């Protein structure tokens, strides 16, 4: 069968790829996609620990709450991107600097 370490290493690699995407990309939408990758990696970890650890249902409940938060985050983030695009006609995060000094 599959040992737990495979899932954890998979989730770690996925999280690090998402982190690179969120830190390095200039496009706000690409940053949002990187954040989605990181949230998914965390969720895989939660479900894997639920499956391999002490057997209670709370792991799945935790993962469901993370789903709800991810949906809220995506909706608000995309609304912000649309709003910024309307006002500035750009979604490059290094050009959106009106809150900087």
């Amino acid at each position, binding site marked *: 069968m599959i040992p737990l370490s495979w899932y954890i290493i998979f989730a770690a690699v996925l999280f690090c790829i998402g982190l*690179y995407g969120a830190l390095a990309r200039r496009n706000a939408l690409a940053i949002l996609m990187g954040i989605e990758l990181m949230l998914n990696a965390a*969720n895989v970890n939660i479900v894997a620990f639920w499956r391999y650890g002490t057997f209670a249902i709370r792991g799945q409940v935790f993962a*469901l709450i993370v789903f709800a938060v991810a949906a809220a985050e995506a909706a608000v983030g995309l609304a912000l991107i649309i709003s910024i695009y309307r006002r500035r006609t750009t979604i490059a995060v290094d050009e959106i600097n009106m809150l900087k000094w």
Partner: protein
Amino acid sequence: MTSVQLVFLLTAAITLYAALMVVLSKHLVHAALWLILVLAGIAVLYVLLNAGFLAVVQVAIYIDAIAILIIIVVMLTQRAMGETSMQVNRSWWLAALTSIVLFVGLVALFNQIPFLQSDAPALDVDAEVLLDDLGVSLVDVDQYILPFEVASVLLLAALVGSIMIAWPRGSASEEEHEA
């Protein structure tokens, strides 16, 4: 190597390649389509982990709702950044370094997990019983009804907030002016 391990390795390889393409591809529509492949691969992993309901939720929420939303916004804002302009910022190497250092640190911490190499404990209940447990625990007063309700309030607040933010500027006052 059993067939389950083979399925896991294949899914993990496809998912990680797709995740790399999400981060590296220049065309944002392509990145969004690769993201859908990543999300589908993670749904397969949920099935392998005996969490069938979460796999269905993954398909329904992520692939149906979030990925479609992202694609729509990509198409709305496509003119803002073409393929020719720089896709990564000046300190991209710092981001790559941070990711690699974080990965090495995480792997170094993995030795502290007690049941790292053990197999999954056998499920002593049916999948249906498990699903019943999950549903009951979400509405049971003694268990998780409070986080469940807080999540619903959060979703409502996010709904109202995103409508407010994305509302066209000035259109409300114009309607008042006309009336």
